């Protein structure tokens, strides 16, 4: 007997089987909820109000959230709610995953155009009796100064059909060659004008895909979306855990990632009238876990210490084997992983800023749940990662949220508190940059001490109606800031450097682009530094993927960089703890 779930405020009626999870029913109906903790009942982000119908007794997790004031009596967690009877539920905006504005731009250098894919047009002369060369031999003779391997049997079959079908004596054809070394395909006619590629930033949360014309290097279009794996949990560890505990889940995670990408690639190509067969190369950059999961590689070695990756550099892979909806005879190149959790997104980032070409000493910081840091001292690169936790993404904060419509992303204390929200909507939560502004402002106004104590008797900092920061929230921000600060200081110290030795700082990540530098310095997140030499470079994972797509030599340089970066682990040795505890104080440093 089917049950009916009425969803408010839409008023839609959804059908459900008894015992089905409410979150699954909503998701199937195209109303995905924020399942931040991966249905573990811990984050409370998927709460819904039960307006009509039996409210089951709160379970242990729900009672915990209620005790903390994070869950009203009339609400339950959709990820734990098994439907038994007909219901009406109101899904608050804060529980929904909305279409997300994703940072699709990153600052990259312009790179010399030299893509791996080359299209060579030739006319196939009719063989004569005197020189009865085979079709293949006569084609090979037309490749200028290169001797690519191939073709594959599949391509040879196509060629045999084409050679017969095309009008002799001068059948025009186009060979598709990869890196001067591999003959991928043969196409009838002159197709040299159509050579396209995709650059993909596969983030844990968000995905950005850019379509490029490889003949001109110009960008034709960009799409953004969510990583379809989010249903397994928002953070990278929950994905690793899912795949680690159950090999079947690994394949599921892989196919979700691929299907999600294909669902974005299809419309992007259609919009620009590019047939999928015209895409012979794709470059994908993601963190270590994402690129492993995309390829269906086990993440067991990433799940437990000593946390190492299965691969650093992989050759470009046959597109057909990856499942991407592009030309199956094409190639998919995955940006190289550096070490353990410093992955292809960071290698791409280094390529985007051209770290190996810079003269002098530089720091590259990617601010995320894991803060990845790379320092360049003359010609030596050193990297580390530091667990900042999800506070900068607005998670683990009572009023925190991702940078979605309605999120406070800027705040300033004037006569009263002035807020700017994404989309100019009424504030419904605070995202990372808003948190930095609010805490820095509260510090200035004496509402919070440098030790992080909220000084007013209510022990909260009011932000807007139903939005306020608690003492625990401030503590989370202290932890996140201290993790980054300690990571930077220790990485510099290991290289016998201070910030004075740096010629510039690159700050990557969506968070960075909207960050108020003064406030970040005030809290100690960034060091005091010449403002003109702090470069907010945005989504360098995408910018780097583009560079690697447009230039084969950039790819080689990136591989070289990735392999020579020295990795240090901060967790080893007691120094980290002492430095970390000291860094918990909100204080500018240099």
């Amino acid at each position: 007997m089917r049950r009916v779930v009425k969803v408010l405020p839409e008023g839609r009626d959804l059908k459900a089987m008894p015992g089905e999870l409410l979150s699954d029913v909503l998701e199937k109906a195209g109303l995905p909820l924020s399942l931040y903790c991966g249905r573990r009942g811990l984050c409370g982000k998927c709460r819904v109000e039960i307006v009509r119908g039996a409210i089951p007794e709160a379970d242990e997790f729900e009672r915990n959230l209620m005790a903390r004031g994070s869950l009203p009596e009339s609400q339950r967690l959709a990820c734990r709610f098994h439907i038994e009877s007909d219901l009406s539920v109101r899904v608050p905006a804060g529980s929904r995953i909305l279409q997300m504005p994703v940072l699709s731009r990153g600052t990259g250098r312009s790179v010399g155009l030299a893509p791996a894919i080359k299209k060579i047009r030739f006319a196939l002369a009719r063989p004569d009796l005197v020189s009865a060369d085979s079709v293949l031999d006569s084609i090979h003779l037309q490749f200028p100064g290169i001797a690519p391997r191939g073709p594959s049997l599949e391509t040879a079959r196509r060629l045999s059909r084409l050679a017969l079908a095309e009008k002799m004596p001068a059948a025009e054809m186009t060979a598709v060659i990869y890196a001067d070394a591999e003959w991928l395909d043969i196409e009838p006619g002159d197709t040299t004008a159509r050579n396209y590629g995709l650059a993909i930033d596969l983030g844990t949360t968000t995905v950005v895909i850019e379509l490029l014309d490889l003949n001109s290097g110009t960008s034709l279009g960009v799409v953004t979306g969510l990583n379809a794996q989010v249903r397994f949990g928002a953070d990278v560890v929950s994905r690793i855990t899912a795949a680690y505990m159950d090999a079947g889940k690994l394949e599921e995670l892989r196919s979700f990632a691929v299907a999600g990408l294909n669902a974005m690639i299809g419309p992007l190509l259609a919009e620009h009238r590019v047939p999928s067969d015209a895409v012979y190369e794709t470059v994908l950059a993601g963190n270590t876990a994402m690129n492993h999961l995309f390829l269906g590689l086990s993440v067991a070695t990433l799940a437990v210490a000593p946390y190492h990756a299965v691969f650093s550099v992989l050759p470009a892979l046959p597109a057909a084997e990856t499942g991407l909806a592009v030309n199956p005879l094409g190639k998919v190149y995955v940006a190289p992983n550096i070490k353990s959790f410093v992955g292809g997104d960071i290698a791409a980032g280094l390529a985007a800023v051209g770290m190996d070409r810079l003269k002098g000493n530089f720091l590259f910081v990617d601010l995320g749940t894991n803060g990845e840091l790379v320092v360049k001292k003359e010609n030596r690169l050193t990297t580390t990662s530091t667990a900042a936790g999800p506070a900068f993404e607005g998670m683990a904060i009572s009023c925190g949220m991702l940078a979605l419509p309605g999120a406070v992303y800027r705040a300033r204390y004037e006569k009263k508190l002035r807020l700017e929200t994404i989309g100019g909507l009424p504030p419904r939560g605070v995202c990372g940059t808003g948190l930095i502004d609010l805490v820095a402002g509260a510090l200035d106004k004496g509402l919070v001490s440098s030790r992080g104590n909220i000084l007013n008797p209510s022990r909260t900092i009011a932000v807007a109606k139903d939005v306020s920061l608690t003492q625990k929230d401030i503590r989370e921000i202290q932890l996140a800031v201290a993790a980054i600060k300690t990571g930077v200081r220790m990485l510099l110290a290991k290289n016998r450097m201070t910030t004075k030795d740096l010629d510039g700082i690159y700050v990557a990540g969506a968070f960075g682009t909207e960050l108020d530098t003064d406030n970040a310095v005030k809290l100690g997140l960034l060091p005091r530094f010449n403002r003109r030499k702090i470069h907010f470079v945005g989504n360098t994972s995408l910018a780097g993927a583009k560079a690697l797509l447009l230039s084969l030599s950039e790819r080689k340089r990136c591989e070289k960089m990735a392999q020579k970066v020295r990795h240090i682990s901060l967790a080893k040795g007691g120094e980290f703890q002492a430095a970390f505890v000291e860094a918990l104080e909100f204080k500018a440093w240099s």
Partner: protein
Amino acid sequence: MEMKNRLLRMMAAAIVAGDKETAEVLAGKALAEKLDLHEVIDKGYLPGIQKVGELWESGEYFLPELITSAECMKAAMAVLKPALEASHASGYSRGKIVIGTIEGDIHDIGKNLVASMLAANGFEVTDLGADVKLARFIDKAQESRADIICLSALLTTTMLNQGRLIDLLKQRGLRERFKVLVGGAPVTRKWAADIGADGYAENATSAVKLALEISPKRGQL
């Protein structure tokens, strides 16, 4: 009497303030005045560290204060230790604990904090560090005749090893020999119950409370 009470209050205050030098000086004074050292600990220093725990729970104190106070406590105990051992064979102990971050996990700041708070509260703590192999945990617990094993895990992946340790204890017929407490960011009360642990603590101060509740010694000598 009046002086003794004043000293005891000053000891507590020194711990709360994180004033290591004063805490040590006061311990020396207790020795010089030949005060009953158990009273000094029970009514002087311990109330101080308990107050620190309360301030932590109310959000007033954070990690730096907690660590400083725990270090103060350690310094004061170091002054008292020789005399304590001379007068009582077993010194002063509320129970023996081995603690560590579980196999596969290298995160240890939270675990270090729990270890130092347990020590500050009168437990004899053996800290095995991070990425502690399951068998080593059990060997060390037997070797040190521990009452309690405390397991930390910071990842949902490594958390699984907490359950494996309990299974290994059962295999070796040692499950009843030790109490097992679990903690760490991804760990929940439900997880603790699922794997058959004896308790779960959310943070350092609740770990102390829990250890006091289940320790067979409860401060006896």
